[in-house]
């Protein structure tokens, strides 16, 4: 067991990676075996992540030097700095890991029926596993170049899956996505070069220790923040989001949401850990808050007139990303001040709690949109209607998702939004007022969707979707209700350690030593 826990950081990345490249071979042998194998791998990864999460919450951070005889020794014998690639997982990293693994598990279950046989389903699972590898790698790594590599794995696998349907429109969305991702990846690589040129280091903790905050570091910061903000879909770099989200298969859209959040995590990691208190905190924190407010407001106002159900949800995804930026940006704004301990940390908890809530309910909503598309073959809201007569479970899942995103108790969106309202109110009441207004507009928009898709006379004679799709949606619904009923338990045991891990830069740096 001990050996197992020690090596689990590497296993978590290795296992899906190996499985991804075994998948085409198993696909050639037997189709059923491939499905079972894929689901099995996702379940094993989920269990491993949860075991590791228990250990990290209990015993603190995990470090793992890849290729070292004793993987806990991050600095080899004669060297003064970490030379090997180090995986460093703190409470925040494993928190994001749980999100990625859960969303991928739900997406893989859903895809069993949603993706038709004979259209390259084996390759679909290969790419889905690679997305999981990319996300977990980004969240677990302690090496900035490794972050870039996993970022690219995530982008390439996601782009290929966005274009999965091989229609022209899908290629259009995927093209935009890939252009944005590769340019932002080049920004990241350029800033890595700036760091390496100055400090001869690639390890995040070692870089943070030596950080002098020179002009070059400021340029690198601007490049990193804009690259990750571009990829997480915050306004003003949001335009790829609705295009890519609407054309991708629904299960992939749900994982794309989790992928954007991996970029959001990288943004927070750069701000809090790599630069930390050396930053001009008021400026950068203020910038994140303004990005957040803009995303919230622009996202929701653009969502209201949409007719395409998935485009509408994609604009809501932008708007919800704003809440996370607002909460964590408020934490960064107050970092190092006495107020931080009273309400700054609460704001961060709200923002971080919202990340997991958003991944769950937005994933669920995209999956229900996919269920509608599966039966009706249209995404246009005007062509839907009366679906609640036949698709009972899908409509229940949709109601739960819609109420959760609008922040109605007792669902999970309410818990995290309430923490954000309470804490940012103390910085400026205007922030809370805008956040609440956006919440109300979100509710209005989803009432419209519910009415036009599910209510009314029975127009379409359709059946309920297959069981595996319902199970996929059920997994996420269970998490939403559980988090909504016991928010205190989750905040104390999962979110609070994550927020403190992000805020306490010194602990992250100590773990490397040297």
């Amino acid at each position, binding site marked *: 067991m001990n050996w197992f826990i020690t090596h689990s950081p590497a296993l978590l990345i290795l296992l899906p990676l190996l499985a991804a490249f075994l998948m085409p071979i198993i696909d050639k042998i037997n189709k059923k075996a491939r499905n079972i194998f894929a689901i099995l791998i996702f379940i094993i990864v989920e269990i491993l992540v949860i075991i590791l999460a228990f250990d990290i919450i209990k015993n603190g951070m995990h470090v793992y030097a890849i290729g070292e005889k004793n993987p806990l020794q991050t600095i080899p014998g004669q060297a003064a700095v970490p030379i090997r690639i180090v995986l460093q997982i703190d409470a925040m990293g494993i928190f994001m890991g749980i999100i990625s693994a859960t969303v991928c598990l739900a997406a893989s279950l859903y895809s069993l029926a949603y993706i038709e046989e004979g259209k390259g389903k084996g390759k679909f699972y290969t790419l889905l596993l690679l997305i999981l590898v990319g996300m977990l790698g980004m969240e677990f790594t302690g090496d900035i170049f490794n972050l870039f590599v996993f970022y690219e794995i995530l982008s390439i696998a996601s782009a290929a899956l966005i274009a999965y349907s091989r229609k022209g429109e899908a290629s259009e969305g995927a093209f935009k996505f890939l252009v944005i991702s590769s340019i932002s990846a080049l920004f990241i690589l350029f800033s890595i070069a700036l760091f*390496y040129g100055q400090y001869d280091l690639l390890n995040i903790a070692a870089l943070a220790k030596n950080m002098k905050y020179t002009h070059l570091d400021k340029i690198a910061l601007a490049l990193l923040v804009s690259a990750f903000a571009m990829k997480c879909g915050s306004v003003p770099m949001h335009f790829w989001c609705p295009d890519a989200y609407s054309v991708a298969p629904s299960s992939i859209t749900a994982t794309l949401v989790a992928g954007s959040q991996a970029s959001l995590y990288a943004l927070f990691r750069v701000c809090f850990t790599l630069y930390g208190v050396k930053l001009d905190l008021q400026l950068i924190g203020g910038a994140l808050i303004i990005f957040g407010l803009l995303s919230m407001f622009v996202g929701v106002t653009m969502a209201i007139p949409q007719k395409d159900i998935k485009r509408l949800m994609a604009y809501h995804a932008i708007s919800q990303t704003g809440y996370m930026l607002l909460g964590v940006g408020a934490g960064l704004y107050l970092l190092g001040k006495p107020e931080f301990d009273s309400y700054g940390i609460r704001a961060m908890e709200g923002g971080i709690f919202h990340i997991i809530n958003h991944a769950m309910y937005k994933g669920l909503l995209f999956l229900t949109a996919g269920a509608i598309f599966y039966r009706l073959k249209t995404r246009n809201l005007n062509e839907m209607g009366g679906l609640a007569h036949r698709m009972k479970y899908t409509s229940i899942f949709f109601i739960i998702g819609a109420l959760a995103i609008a922040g109605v108790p007792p669902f999970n969106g309410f818990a995290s939004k309430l923490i954000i309202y309470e804490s940012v109110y103390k910085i400026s009441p205007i922030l809370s007022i805008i956040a609440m207004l956006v919440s109300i507009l979100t509710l209005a928009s989803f009432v419209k969707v519910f009415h036009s898709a599910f209510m009314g006379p029975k127009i379409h004679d359709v059946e309920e979707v297959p069981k595996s799709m319902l199970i996929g949606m059920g997994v996420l619904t269970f998490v939403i209700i559980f988090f909504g009923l016991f928010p205190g338990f989750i905040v104390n045991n999962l979110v609070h350690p994550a927020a403190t891990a992000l805020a306490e830069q010194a602990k992250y740096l100590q773990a490397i030593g040297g």
Partner: protein
Amino acid sequence: MIYNIPFFTVIALIAIGMYAVIFKRNLVKIAIGISIIESGVNLFLITLGYREGGIAPIFTNLPPEITPSDIPEKMVMPVPQALTLTSIVIGVAVLALILAFIMRIYKEYGTLDAREVRRLRE
């Protein structure tokens, strides 16, 4: 001054690439732009890694005039070169995928003009 020429080239390459990505309407030209930015970044990494008179860290293949006492000063850590190789490999994959998307778009839309490839916005 002469040592700064590679850095000016880097800036020029990135600026040209950015110009192509932002202002060009043809999708293939956008792909070319990305590729040019990537060359600029790779050149930047390689330039940072260059040390005058340095030797590759291969002990079995040392030049005869090098004595063991010179090794710590002369041997160069090959990290930037390794980063560049990784980045080139990734760049090839991205370029292949972008070109594949452009092919699909051309087959369905019959055009490569970015102003006309906008069915999603309607």
